[in-house]
């Protein structure tokens, strides 16, 4: 029997299903999602600004922001009432599975560039909740996970310092001295690079530095390994990062608390922690 004949005999549903297609709900506009409605501001120009972010429209975002700044709207308000609200909505749609990574990245790009416009008027960097430092483990060239974390942190109102890929422990010590972060995130894809994490902890201890927590995650990283040394907490999803940072900032949690209260902090079922 020929390949074509064989192909035509198969009822694919008896072999594999495409649950993503099967279960797709009706298309709705992002601004009509009920959680987004709760987040979006009602007043102009903030509503329009937030919507440009929600629609991932960098050019429109910059244009409206510039126009609003020209009209004397406070750059701080534009950031907090407009751009950040839009980004909040994007994060919510991503965690709900309605938005995808490219939405998040493009909205993030639009937000970051718009913030820069505001800062130009402000004359200095805008205020953030606090600073977080992010790195990829020494020897590891994979940084998409880290870039995702950066985006979530920035969307969550944090100053996120990007130390890049393949970062030696010494550079992290320097960064802690310089930025005094409330949280560090490290990612690794390989077992032989995740061993960089305890070395970072050691280097910090040697330098007499302490950080409330170092979130360690990524492909090869296992919870039992991360919990075999101090200062660390095993991070499961990139979007958990700002929630962990919030817990440190607002509730004064440290790495011991984060390990114990992870599920409560990220507020969802996490098999690794239950």
């Amino acid at each position, binding site marked *: 029997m020929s390949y074509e004949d064989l192909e035509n005999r*198969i009822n694919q549903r*008896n072999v594999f*299903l495409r*649950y993503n297609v099967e279960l797709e709900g009706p298309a709705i506009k992002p601004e009509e999602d009920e959680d987004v409605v709760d987040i979006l501001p009602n007043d102009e120009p903030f509503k329009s600004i937030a919507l440009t972010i929600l629609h991932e429209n960098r050019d429109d975002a910059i244009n409206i922001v510039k126009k609003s700044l020209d009209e004397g709207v406070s750059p701080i308000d534009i950031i907090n009432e407009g751009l950040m609200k839009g980004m909040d909505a994007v994060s919510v749609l991503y965690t709900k599975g309605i938005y995808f990574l490219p939405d998040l990245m493009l909205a993030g790009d639009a937000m970051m560039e718009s913030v820069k416009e505001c800062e130009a008027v402000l004359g200095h960097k805008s205020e953030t909740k606090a600073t977080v430092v992010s790195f990829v483990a020494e020897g590891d060239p994979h940084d998409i996970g880290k870039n995702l974390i950066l985006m979530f942190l920035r969307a969550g109102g944090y100053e996120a310092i990007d130390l890049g890929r393949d970062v030696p422990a010494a550079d992290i010590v320097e960064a802690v001295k310089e930025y005094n972060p409330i949280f560090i995130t490290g990612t690794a894809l390989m077992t032989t690079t995740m061993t960089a994490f305890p070395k970072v902890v050691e280097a910090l201890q040697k330098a007499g530095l302490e950080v409330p927590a170092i979130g360690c995650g990524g492909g090869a990283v*296992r919870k039992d390994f991360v919990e075999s040394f101090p200062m660390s907490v095993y991070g499961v999803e990139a979007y958990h990062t700002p929630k962990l940072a919030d817990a440190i900032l607002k509730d004064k949690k440290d790495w011991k608390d984060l390990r114990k209260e992870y599920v409560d902090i990220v507020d969802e079922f996490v098999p690794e922690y*239950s």
Partner: protein
Amino acid sequence: MKRFTQMEYKDPDEMLFGHAKFPVKIRENMEIGDGYVIPEINVAPGEGTEESKEKMVSESRNIAHSASERAVNIGLPAFILEQEHISQQTNNPDWTAECTKVQIEMLEKYYDEYGIKTALRATPADIRDEEKDSGFWDSDLFNKVIESIEACASNGASIVSIETTGGKSVSDYGIARGDPKAILFGIGVLGSMDMEYMWNKIVLICKKYDCIPGGDTDCSQANTAMFLAGGLLDKDCSHTLAALARAMGAARSLVAVECGAMGPLKDCGYENPIVKAITGVPISAEGKNAVCAHSDLMGNLMAAVTDVWSNESVYHREEMGGTTPEVWLQATGYEAALMNTAIETDNGKILRDLYTLTDKYRDPQALVLAYDNAYRIGQAIVEYGDDPYLRARAAALEAGAIINEAVDAKKMYLTRFERDSLDSALKTLEKLPTESDKFIKDCIRRYSRKIADFDPKNYEL
């Protein structure tokens, strides 16, 4: 009890993966053996989770969650989660109850959300103690086993199985010493007696709760021989003797079906193709996707006529590719998908034959389980179907004949050790009495003296 004295399959060529004479229906929509192969995933609780009920329940939930999530993520139409309980669970039937409950809840959640067909096979541990005066059939431990089975059935398990261990002390003695008589007594007589005792009870419990009595496996006996036989370089058990033990195991595992077990028979019963040939019930099997648990020499062949395809067992932990429930369900799921594609395109029998011929002449153990030979052993069993001893003996003799024919045809090559142990085993088996009573009396005398753990009273002998 109905003994099988006829084959349900009339021709070995009728046998094919995904197809059983008597499919088993779970809930509304999963039918096992009704034209497709279903993957089965079995994950052992991680170390430390045995410390408390809370940890074990959470571990059970996590395993069910991971498996379900991956199943949907890769588009499996159906899967079975097997949970083999550890002794702490069976020792505490309330653990069993709670673990079963959370697993069924998780599986049903995914069924409701995605329409994926799911089922839970719960397998309490046989924690009974065969030692002298232990009350194998009537002790606290025995009661715990029965209570745990009821806890599974009453808490929603779709299928209940168990790996009973009757006769293990005697068969272990025989396997370690290359003594075919002890193996036959341990598997064919004591094993079969214990199966009958246990399975009559299990089937009654299952009926009460509308739960499927799945079936048993000669794991504790024939698999001990197989694991000791090991690979080509291993020196612990002759592979020919392991093949004979397997044939005897079929005569024993058949008893569960005779007591009312409906299948799918349990994955690690490598004798299942023989039992399927006789009874027509669906079976589970394991092979090349059970490398996580053990190495066998028939990893493809075991897929040939199975209805459910399993990974045997793996520790619960993380790999690069995900947690082990995810990784190994994907492994069995992808093989099941290949079989289902073969069924869909009417190439099932070709794939069956490829699976079989890949391994058929690699090892005597594989040879006797090739579906044509499995069928022959089935015929030998039903010829003496009414007598557990005689049918186990007939199965072993037929297995020996199959091996010898293949050697004569220059298709199978044996080492000296395999050749010698086969010759000597066949000689011994042929000389045995043709009356069960005589054989049993003789064995009781011989082995109660030699084997510290063997107590005839345990079997009311």
